């Protein structure tokens, strides 16, 4: 198992350098000169231009720029935002908990509903529940996120008034807790009603962000279960006189989970992409919204840094999934 983990870790290294190369190239491949772009409509004087070029290191040869960039990364320096003049890493870290909170809620919802739904559909293959679920999943998968979000806002926020329209917290409260997770900080703050407010703000964005992963997980669970239910060992389990819940929920599901875990890991990438839209629609102050705002503000340093961190996060998640995959699949673990 240790060797397995190490070999996985080794594959991490080239991927990481690939990602740094892409994010390094990003800012330099944009049409036009970055400093001109930065300066915008007004333009800059020759002297100011050279000063800026030196400040950002654009005057050095390209390989030197890359090396400096790498050194910066290893020192935790992802550049400074053109706009706020604060380090990109600090900006990112300040907003990341909001995105993390939303993503964790969304993926948890998707797993908690998607896996049981897929199992029940597979066990009742071809019957009403199965067909209803698969149709719903197809709709959920193909629905545009912003349209779905607006629909929910119109019905539950504007229409029924059950949930707030945007943000993480009612303006009545000022919560600044240690974890950055609004729900947890609200609980810790002990302010009455704060937790309820945090949860009610979280509901709609979570549903919107969970929709696509939920559809993917339910479909994948169903098809993996259908395959596994025909296996000989499932018949063996039933021949022991075990109850259907144990046969389906343990003997079959345990095997079906192997492909499902892969899909869950892959959907983390989808989740971050979805977070950009979801956060923008719900004015959720996370990195998705920050990235969009940075693009509109032409804050390329921020975009570049954000891209790199997001890519590394996706890589770490995939690595974790690979290791988890080994844990639930004895054939890989005990090689």
């Amino acid at each position, binding site marked *: 198992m240790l060797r397995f983990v190490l070999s996985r870790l080794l594959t991490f290294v080239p991927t990481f350098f690939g990602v740094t190369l892409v994010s390094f190239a990003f800012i330099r491949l944009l049409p036009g000169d970055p400093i001109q772009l930065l300066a915008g409509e007004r333009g800059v004087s020759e002297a100011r231009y050279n000063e800026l070029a030196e400040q950002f290191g654009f005057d050095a040869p390209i390989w030197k720029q890359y090396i400096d960039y790498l050194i910066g990364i290893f020192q935790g320096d992802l550049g400074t935002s053109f706009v706020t003049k604060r380090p990109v890493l600090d900006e990112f870290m300040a907003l990341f908990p909001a995105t993390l909170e939303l993503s964790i809620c969304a993926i948890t919802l998707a797993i908690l509903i998607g896996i049981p739904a897929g199992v029940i559909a597979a066990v009742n293959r071809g019957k009403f529940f199965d067909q209803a679920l698969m149709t719903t999943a197809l709709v959920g998968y193909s629905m545009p996120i912003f349209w779905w979000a607006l629909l929910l806002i119109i019905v539950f926020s504007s229409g029924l008034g059950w949930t707030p329209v945007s943000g993480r917290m009612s303006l009545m409260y000022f919560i600044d807790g240690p974890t950055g997770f609004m729900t947890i900080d609200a609980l810790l703050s002990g302010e009455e009603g704060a937790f309820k407010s945090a949860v009610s703000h979280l509901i709609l964005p979570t549903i919107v962000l969970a929709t696509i992963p939920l559809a993917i997980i339910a479909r994948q669970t169903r098809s993996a279960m259908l395959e596994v239910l025909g296996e000989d*060992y499932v018949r*063996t389990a039933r*021949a*022991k*006189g*075990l*109850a259907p819940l144990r046969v389906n929920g343990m*003997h079959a599901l345990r095997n079906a989970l192997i492909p499902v875990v892969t899909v869950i890991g892959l959907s983390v990438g989808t989740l971050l992409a979805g977070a950009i839209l979801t956060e923008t629609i719900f004015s959720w102050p996370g990195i998705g919204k920050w990235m969009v705002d940075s693009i509109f503000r032409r804050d390329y340093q921020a975009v570049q840094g954000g891209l790199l961190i997001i890519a590394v996060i996706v890589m770490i998640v995939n690595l974790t999934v690979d290791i988890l995959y080994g844990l639930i699949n004895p054939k890989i673990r005990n090689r």
Partner: protein
Amino acid sequence: MPLLEIRNLSVEFSTTSGKFRAVDGIDVTVEPNDLMAIVGESGSGKSVSMLAVMGLLPWTATITADVMAFNGHDLRDMTAKQRRRIIGRDMSMIFQEPMSSLNPCFTVGFQIKESLKKHTDLDRKGRQNRAIELMQLVGIPAPEKRLNAFPHQLSGGMSQRAMIAMALACEPKLLIADEPTTALDVTIQAQILELLTSLQEETGMALILITHDMGVVAETVRRVQVQYAGQKVEEQEVGALFDDPHHPYTAALLAALPERATERRLPTIPGVVPGQFDRPQGCLFSPRCRFANAHCKAVEPVQASPEMGLALCHYPLSHGEPTNREKAS
């Protein structure tokens, strides 16, 4: 009272292309401590009939029987829950493919102890001891270590031994072994058969051995039931069956054994078992039978007398020659 009694069992599958009768009026009687074989070619409904007894067929199967009783319980009007208390405990089954019949995600020990947990009230320690005992019983060396092995770490023969240990966990009264050696190589086959028969003798359980190999039958069992295209075509004590087969199908199966061949080329039975779309009129074996005449191809045969092995044939053989010919023509 027989341990297992089945009268006129039929199983019909509803498939997308219509109904298919995979088992057609089978009778099986098993006494306690019995050792019998069900023999027939691939597709003759051996597995399906026993899966019906175990209650393991998919919902597409419709099961009908005049009598289907095990150990005094009527299996027909039993709920799924009641049935689950019997299978795996008093009646258990092992399957053809040992490698795929064990769950790859759980250790062998877990899978053995699971049966004990379900059907006995042994505690953790008791289950562990019993599992080790079972592994020793089926001849698995280093049982403590092997209990923690995953199925992919075992060979085919070891997997089948583990399956047998699992099936024997609760000391069943009846063990159904569905072609337990087909997937194994020849030397291992003999070991597993040896193991099964010695276990049958030691424990006093009844054993139904399903096979398509007459050669296996000769040295292993006491009584043989021959099945063809979902029907029981003959039943005899093993010695009598080999001396004087009464159904032409049995005779053809025996003639195809290498050790009984009289010519240099092995005689084969032409054709295959009829499936869903090519069921003939009259006797189901008639298209492949070298004694068949027009009467056979038109009229369904009825069971002959017990002296004639209950052969399902118009002209059951006696010492290789058809009888009753004159009467029909």
